[in-house]
């Protein structure tokens, strides 16, 4: 069968901020047959989105197709005039963006944007386009299909916008749809419904798809074939079953291995319970000042309590808006709570950083999700890591240097890295520097706020390994905040599930998948995609439960 789309030896160059030219796609070739869904999988910087966009004859500003061909239905879109290129966009090939929230024009009604393709290409009269859009809304299981189009983008939820963007792509009956990480920005319970909707329209319309993602488990549910990319080159290509069950390339094996469950509990629970290192009681906090009833005007946390024993780890899981990050900010003293106490090794801490002694501050350190924004871009690594050493322990000169070296050793970074600026480091290296800075204080408790979420799978697995080793060596305790259950499973002893600012359930991490009792915990845990091509089709969720908890 002749392929619908075919990329031949594609090379794309980009100009960096410093003005240097680099090749970001290095000789990629791939085919998409009619009716087939091909997934492009890879880490950030692997070039997956760039390749997908080239199918529309489009490159982002600063990028340029240097050589190669992108054949769409036999026509090379690289050489087309701007007008001819515009003619295929939306009609032959359509695009579903990563963040639908940003991809909808905030000042226009949804319906006008959904049927815009029909208007631009004069495919059908507006009335017919509107009727077709409503049919699509219905097929995509959107609520109020008849009227949802009259709303503005800010009036519908993220999951709905993502499905609306699929309708926007489908309106022109394209032969190929490009999905650019369409569920990455969504919570897991929302992701399921969106994935199901995508899958049904692709099957129903017999159209081809290119699905870009970094998440192998998501891709396994929807793709016929998977192309594994790294640094702008194809590593391996094969059917989904083959890639997942019998990966050939070492890199693919690494990707798969990162999914395997790891031993969670670091320390066996002893019969005699030691005094907790951290204890939180009746914590109520929020923003906007304290109202007349003694509660914050915008409450985020309500009566949260937790206990963390020394040398053990507590995972806090929940979706966006559950208040888990606010909890970490309260414990660190960044957000003084409206009510409740936080005690460290039996001593109650002052609510804000100003009231806490230097030693209290030293004992609790916080590590953030985005290593990029957590490191001062204009200070060399050595100075970043050295500051807590000077601040808490008063070391200077040679002693300070020696301590910084030791800290870099601890997080497995070469010592020479202390002269580098954060911008010159990779994501994983930055997160290690971040950890080293926390360790420099010699804390007892580290608050890890989604520390692996922004990292690529393989890198995240290595950071988790490091965290576990450090814990063994230094006897630390972690409060581990994450929306990613497998991460929490891999490192925590106990788990606390949060929903809309309240604790829903506490349990041992090892029992999470089987022993969850609260309906929300069960829904959340069952919604995490498994590395199994049949998972989504076999998944059954209680519709009532879904309606109650998932904000779609």
């Amino acid at each position: 069968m002749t392929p619908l789309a075919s990329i031949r030896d594609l090379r794309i160059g980009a100009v960096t901020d410093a003005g240097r030219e680099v090749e970001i796609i290095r000789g990629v070739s791939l085919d998409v047959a009619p009716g087939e869904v091909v997934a492009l999988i890879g880490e950030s910087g692997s070039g997956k989105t760039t390749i997908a966009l080239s199918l529309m004859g489009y490159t982002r500003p600063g990028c340029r197709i240097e050589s190669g061909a992108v054949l769409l239905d036999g026509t090379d879109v690289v050489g087309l005039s701007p007008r001819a290129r515009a003619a295929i966009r939306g009609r032959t090939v359509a695009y579903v963006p990563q963040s639908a929230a940003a991809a909808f024009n905030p000042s226009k009604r949804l319906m006008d944007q959904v049927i815009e393709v029909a208007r631009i290409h004069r495919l059908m009269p507006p009335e017919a386009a509107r009727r077709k859009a409503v049919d699509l809304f219905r097929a995509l299981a959107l609520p109020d299909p008849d009227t949802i189009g009259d709303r503005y983008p800010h009036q519908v939820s993220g999951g709905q916008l993502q499905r609306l963007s699929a309708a926007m792509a489908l309106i022109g009956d394209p032969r190929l749809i490009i999905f650019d990480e369409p569920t990455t920005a969504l919570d897991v319970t929302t992701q399921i419904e969106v994935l199901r909707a995508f899958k049904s329209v692709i099957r129903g319309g017999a159209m081809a798809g290119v699905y870009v993602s970094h998440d192998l488990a998501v891709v396994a549910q929807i793709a016929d074939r998977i192309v594994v990319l790294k640094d702008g080159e194809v590593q391996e290509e094969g059917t989904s079953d083959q890639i997942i069950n019998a990966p050939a390339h070492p890199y693919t094996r690494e990707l798969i291995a990162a999914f395997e469950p790891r031993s969670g509990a670091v320390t066996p629970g002893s019969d005699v319970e030691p005094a907790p290192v951290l204890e939180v009681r009746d914590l109520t906090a929020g923003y906007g000042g304290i109202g007349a009833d003694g509660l914050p005007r915008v409450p985020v946390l309500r009566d949260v309590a937790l206990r963390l024993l020394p040398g053990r780890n507590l995972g806090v899981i929940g979706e966006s808006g559950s208040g888990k990050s606010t909890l970490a900010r309260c414990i660190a003293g960044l957000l003084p709570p409206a009510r409740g106490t936080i005690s460290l090794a039996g001593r109650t801490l002052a609510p804000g950083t100003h009231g806490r002694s230097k030693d209290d501050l030293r004992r609790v350190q916080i590590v953030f999700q985005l290593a990029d924004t957590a490191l001062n871009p204009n200070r060399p690594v050595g100075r970043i890591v050295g500051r807590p050493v000077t601040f808490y322990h008063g070391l200077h000169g040679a002693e300070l240097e020696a301590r910084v070296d030791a800290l870099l050793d601890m997080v497995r970074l070469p010592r020479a890295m202390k002269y580098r600026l954060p911008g010159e480091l990779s994501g994983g290296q930055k997160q290690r520097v971040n950890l080293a800075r926390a360790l420099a204080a010699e804390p007892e408790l580290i608050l890890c706020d989604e520390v692996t979420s922004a990292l690529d799978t393989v890198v995240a697995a290595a950071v988790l390994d490091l965290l576990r080793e450090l814990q063994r060596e230094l006897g630390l305790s972690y409060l581990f905040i994450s929306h990613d259950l497998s991460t929490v499973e891999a490192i925590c002893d106990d788990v606390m599930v949060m929903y809309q600012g309240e604790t829903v359930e506490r349990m041992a991490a090892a029992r999470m998948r089987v022993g969850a009792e609260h309906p929300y915990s069960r829904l959340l845990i069952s919604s995490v995609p498994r590395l199994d091509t049949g998972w989504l089709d076999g998944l059954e969720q209680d519709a009532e439960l879904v309606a109650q908890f998932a904000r779609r």
Partner: protein
Amino acid sequence: MNLLIARMILQRMGIVLLTLLIVSFAVFAVTELLPGDVVEILLGQSATPEAVAGLRAAMHLDEPAVIRFVKWLGGLATGDLGISYVNKLGVAELIEGRLFNTLKLGGVTALFAVPLALGLGIMAAMFQGSVFDRVVSAATVTVISVPEFMVATAAVLIFAVYLKWLPALSLAGDVGSIGELLRNFAMPVITLTFVISAQMIRMTRASVIDTLNTPYCEMALLKGASRVRLVLVHALPNALGAIANAVALSLSYLLGGVIIVETIFNYPGVAKLMVDAVATRDLPLIQSCAMIFCFGFLMLIMIADIVAILANPRLRG
């Protein structure tokens, strides 16, 4: 939702009133409390102490500054602007006709400059990087880099000295025909149009380009929208707030420009009146003129704010 808009607009108006109060206090403080006794200026060095004391009492200058401030403010609000020190005429009378002249000059300039600048700014953004864009950018950066009086002198050199199309001076009032009116008006209007358009073009271009770089404009491009559709349908409605701000800010440059232009072309407007008043240290006149300018400036800013609020789709029903 509309209640929210109304509340936000009322809030803006409240802020404007508050600002006006602070500004009036500043104007009063600078002119009243700083050294230089008005009575001595009026009567000269040789005046007897009795005469000085008498005049002070007559002008209520012996009262505490706070009382005088409140009285002055009350006068401003009721249209009683006081008496000019120099020619003993009511300040309101002096300003009345002049204000009309200045508004006429500003209005005619805005009528030309705003459409011209918006058009050029939007076109430059639409054809970003083209020769047209580069010429416009170079021209605007040059104009904003030079003082207003240079634009004015250049206009005189070109149109009056070399081409001899227009007279160098302008005298509103005694105009016989429309042609004469145009000729008198042309030079100040041309100068001011240059001065305020440059800023407006730059800001309009920048805000449209900012909007063009958003994901939703990329999305529209990927739906097959043309460059023109992209700018007119997707970018412009969202850049409206920013553009309104650019227009208001540029029109406020008009206030600065008008001071120079009225002086250089000897145009009988409020700004010229004020510059003359500064030369004679006629404080009541200076205060009133200053308040008129500040009021105009604040009105422009407030209108821009309100347009931005109305243009925000998130606040619409």
